[in-house]
């Protein structure tokens, strides 16, 4: 059989897979990336575009810090800044309890050198006079920002292929196996082989892992996104809230992009769809945050599919069943910002055998016990 051989095979061309292709190619590895559709056509290409460190799970912060550094150098790295802009991320509290949560996070941020500034009730309405009266306090992460999600994966993929990586689109991987010496993967009529396999298949990473006997409780999630017609520009920072039921930013062209609630999806066809009730609710919550939006018009809504883990943090690291297999998937609705660093970390794991970022919390087998228990229940 005619096999195409390389050093590393990557399944899935989202932010994680494309950045892995780039970092590996930079270090001279022969890389083949297989993407079912076009690169960045799933979560990485349709998300909100938040490049946010503030509020992340402490375990994610080291990766987020590293990713933020890469975002700052993106133009040099891939030839495009992907419209990344350091707008600051302002996380808002709408009650005393929420304010306490913001204060509590200050310590977490400090431990990871993440600059944060708490803004109290009076100051917040002075600094941001367009905020609604529901807001009682805020916490500003000046280094955070936003970017254009549609540009990231294509830019990473282009840079990787310039360095020699094979980026193959419209290749759906249908069978995966390890024949004792290496991985053999088929996509349509083609067969690919390599000693190392990276599973960066997003939500579908669960399926890839299952092919190697690793069961992961990853569920499809579809955050709802909406966008207004262009309005005069006035909202500088990317806005979030404690609890995350609404988030909102205005791009320079004037459109306000906001999100909240969940849509529905069909992972088999990879289609997802906004649901009307939560979409209307997001509109309402957005107006509560920024009352001036009440007169705007919503021109479009959309969603996508990401993999959600029960604890809200991804699977990153080595397989527990198959040597040479590495996973990075299940980013649970906040992996866009992490993408550029995920590739760097995977490249280190492949080429150096280790990385400085602590990956213990992301182990693939951390739910093994519960899965086995559930299986028992069902049987």
């Amino acid at each position: 059989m005619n096999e195409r051989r390389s050093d590393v095979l990557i399944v899935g061309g989202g932010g994680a897979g494309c950045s892995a292709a780039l970092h590996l190619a930079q270090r001279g590895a022969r890389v083949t990336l297989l993407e079912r559709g076009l690169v960045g056509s799933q979560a990485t290409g349709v998300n909100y575009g938040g490049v946010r460190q503030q509020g992340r799970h402490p375990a994610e912060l080291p990766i987020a810090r590293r990713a933020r550094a890469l975002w700052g150098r993106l133009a040099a790295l891939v030839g495009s800044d992907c419209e990344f802009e350091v707008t600051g991320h302002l996380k808002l509290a709408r009650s005393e309890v929420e304010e306490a949560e913001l204060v509590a996070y200050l310590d977490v941020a400090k431990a990871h050198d993440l600059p944060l500034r708490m803004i109290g009730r009076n100051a917040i309405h002075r600094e941001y006079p367009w905020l609604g009266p529901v807001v009682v306090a805020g916490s500003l992460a000046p280094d955070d920002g936003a970017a254009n999600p549609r540009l990231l994966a294509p830019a990473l993929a282009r840079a990787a292929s310039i360095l020699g990586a094979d980026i193959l689109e419209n290749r759906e991987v249908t069978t995966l196996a390890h024949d004792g010496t290496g991985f053999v993967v088929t996509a349509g009529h083609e067969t690919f082989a390599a000693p190392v396999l990276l599973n960066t298949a997003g939500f579908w990473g669960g399926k890839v892992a299952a092919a190697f006997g690793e069961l992961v409780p990853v569920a499809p999630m579809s955050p709802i996104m909406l966008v207004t017609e262009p309005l005069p520009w006035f909202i500088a920072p990317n806005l979030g809230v404690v609890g995350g039921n609404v988030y909102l930013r205005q791009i320079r062209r004037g459109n306000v992009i906001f999100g909240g609630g969940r849509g529905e999806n069909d992972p088999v066809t990879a289609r997802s769809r906004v649901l009307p009730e939560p979409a209307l609710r997001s509109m309402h919550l957005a107006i509560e945050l920024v009352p001036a939006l009440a007169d705007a018009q919503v021109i479009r809504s959309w969603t996508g599919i990401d993999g959600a883990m029960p604890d809200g943090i991804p699977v990153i690291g080595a397989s527990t069943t198959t040597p040479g297999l590495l996973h990075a998937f299940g980013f649970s609705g906040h992996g866009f910002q992490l993408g550029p660093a995920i590739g760097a970390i995977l490249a280190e794991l492949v080429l150096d055998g280790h990385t400085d970022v602590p990956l213990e919390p992301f182990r693939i087998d951390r739910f093994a016990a519960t899965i086995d228990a559930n299986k028992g229940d069902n049987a």
Partner: protein
Amino acid sequence: MTVAVVGAGPAGTRAAEVLVQAGLRPVVIDEAPDNGGRIYQRPPAGFRRSDGDLYGTEAHKAQALHRRFDQLRGAIDLRASTLVWDVRPQQLLTLRDGRSETIGFEQAILCTGAMDRVIPLPGWTLPGVYTLGGAQVALKTQGCAIGQAVAFLGTGPLLWLVAYQYAKAGARVAAVLDTTDFATKAWRTGGLLRGGRTFLNGLRYVGWLRWRGVRIVEGVVPEAIEGDGEVTGLRYRTRHGTHHIACDAVGIGWGLKPETQLADLAGVSFAFDPVQRGWLPVRNEAGRTDIRGIYLAGDGVRIGGADVAELAGARVAWAVVEDRGLPVDHAAVARLDRALQRQAKFRQALDRAFPYPHRLAAGMADDTILCRCEAITAGAMRAAATAEVNRTKALTRIGMGRCQGRVCGPAAAEVLAAALGCPVEQVGRLRGQPPVKPIPMRTAAAG
């Protein structure tokens, strides 16, 4: 559960009529304040022009349709000024007076009609440039012309009709510029043999405009609408060189395109129609689709004109009646099927007589604003051309603005296909997302 009819134009009205006849009480929804649809749109209350003035040779049809609708009012649940902004399985999401309401249905007949198809050209975003339909609406609902000296540019029946209506209403028509070669002759060769009324009317309009001394030029290549802040003229090319005419307003249009967004959101399959050069929702002769409970009729499926819309509306309603297990008037259905077949022949002749000048779209200059909502040029699209229209949209923002590509979509597909050197159907079609038209942020959920 009920039957819902979206659109109260010719198709929707005839559908409602049959449903009522079969003993049903359909919900009829239209975004407009009253029935009539595009061609037989009712003027606002208090507006005084005779039906003859408003609807011309079609006045008797307009009157018949309006009369029928008025008789139906008590037997239907009419929701006027109500936009359907999304379709869910067995549910329509409607917006009226700032409130969103969910209307459940067992069957929904979508009769959403059509809009103008335009080909962007330099200057088309100037104030004073309207679509032919927009120009006609100004005349029909406000009784005013779009300018003092109006040039009409494009091709197809509507071009000649609107120019005629303007001249007839006393407006000065600076020129009728048809991008089809031998356009006036097409009226004769195309359909007279088959006796299509549309063709007879077309001939009349051409003759009348000629007689009035209106400048008529065929086979033009438009170069630019000129003006600085407002329209002052129009430049075009013919075999004989470049020409210029002075005007202060321009009506443009190259035929119509179906409003297919609701069918798309409902999940109906689409297929490329090589004659009308567009992706159209698939339905069978009766109007059934591959989605349970979704039926289609009229110009919202495929441009066929008002007479076809009336027939198709009645026909699809019988399909609904049948699918609900109610008695069907088979003789009526057979009559409708025969009439629809006859009409299909005229329509083919018309489509052939006035083909969409896709090369004109494909060849537009690089600095032409292709997507006016987002101000993206044809050149920007060519530079970012990728094998698929949604990907190119993602990279350039083309079709991401207020109109969601309803205006620029067909021309953008031609530009992209030409840039890639592939057939236009290969670049795919822009995917629809709710809301089908902008809805206010303060829309409140109700019921």
